[in-house]
């Protein structure tokens, strides 16, 4: 049973790593306690993973899910220490207060048609402002005239329509409708695409996996033969090790 081999092998790996890395800790002036802590944490997690029956009958009740779940994260890159730590202290609350502000500001400015604040609100909203100015600039003379009038006089004529009809109601409604539509479409497309593509292969990453090396991989028609070496099998929540594995598959 190659599963029975796992505890002494893992034991040997842990001891070897800890012994070999000790000089590095000493060189950096890291206390020996930290090294012990590392070893302790490591052993605890290995035992808690329940990948094999480790001799000390430690029940290891804590949840052992994190390991299989974390596999995909690891696949992203070996250096990703940041995500777990960064995710804890910073909940992203920023975008939420911003939206209500604009939502509140829009109706307030819409009621009193004042030039100053309306410009500010339009500038802040960006979408309706650009949307509204574009059609005006289509007619070059008209746009210039409008600008001049705006600068010279507090003429109600150009501003009344600006605040009144192109104003925030249609734009707001359009704005409210567009993003939801876009989001809905995009998310639906993305989800369906990714699901369809990834489900067969990469979804359920916590499923069984083998890490190994290969000596040779050969194929004749749909018959595959491969010689695998130095493998770590993880299946059914247990680990198995092999020096050599001969695989025969039909495609």
């Amino acid at each position, binding site marked *: 049973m190659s599963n029975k081999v796992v505890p002494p092998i893992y034991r*040997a790996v842990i001891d070897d790593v800890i012994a070999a890395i000790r000089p590095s800790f000493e060189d950096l002036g890291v206390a020996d306690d930290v090294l012990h802590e590392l070893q302790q944490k490591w052993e605890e997690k290995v035992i808690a993973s329940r990948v094999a029956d480790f001799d000390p009958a430690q029940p290891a009740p804590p949840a052992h899910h994190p390991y299989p779940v974390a596999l995909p994260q690891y696949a992203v890159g070996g250096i990703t220490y940041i995500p777990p730590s960064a995710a804890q202290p910073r909940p992203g609350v920023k975008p939420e207060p911003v939206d209500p502000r604009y939502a509140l500001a829009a109706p307030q400015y819409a009621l009193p048609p004042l030039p100053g604040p309306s410009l500010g609100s339009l500038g802040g909203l960006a979408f309706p402002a650009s949307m509204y100015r574009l059609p005006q600039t289509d007619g070059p003379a008209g746009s210039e005239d409008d600008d001049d009038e705006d600068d010279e006089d507090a003429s109600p004529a150009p501003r009344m329509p600006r605040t009144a009809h192109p104003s925030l109601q249609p734009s707001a409604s359009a704005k409210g409708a567009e993003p939801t539509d876009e989001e809905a479409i995009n998310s639906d497309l993305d989800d369906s695409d990714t699901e369809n593509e990834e489900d067969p292969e990469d979804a359920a990453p916590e499923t069984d996996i083998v890490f190994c*090396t290969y000596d040779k991989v050969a194929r004749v028609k749909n018959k595959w033969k491969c010689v695998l070496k130095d493998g770590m099998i993880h*299946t059914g929540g247990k680990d198995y090790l092999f020096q050599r594995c001969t695989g025969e598959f039909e495609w």
Partner: protein
Amino acid sequence: MASAYYEFYRGSSIGMALTDSLDELITSGAITPQLAMKVLQQFDKSLADTMVKQVKAKTTLKGHLKTYRLCDDVWTFIVKNASFKMEQNEMITTPRIKIIACKNGDAIEAGKK
């Protein structure tokens, strides 16, 4: 020298246990990420050497090959209805298993000295 060893075993159970432990120590400020990288490189070496020296088990695997892929000398197989035949006729079956296999040989031989 350490670069001669594969890093992908870090995704195994014992490797994840180590990376999680290192994460905690980095978060608490006990060690630097650089030192953690050294530990992981040592793990790559220790694991590969220990496997070669101490693991003697041989097994066969049969199943239906659903997906195969060779990219940068790394084979990836997804085998359905896989059955491992361990020594002493122990059988282990699983409906689906993913195999990640790096090339054996030059890289490890060079690192082994």
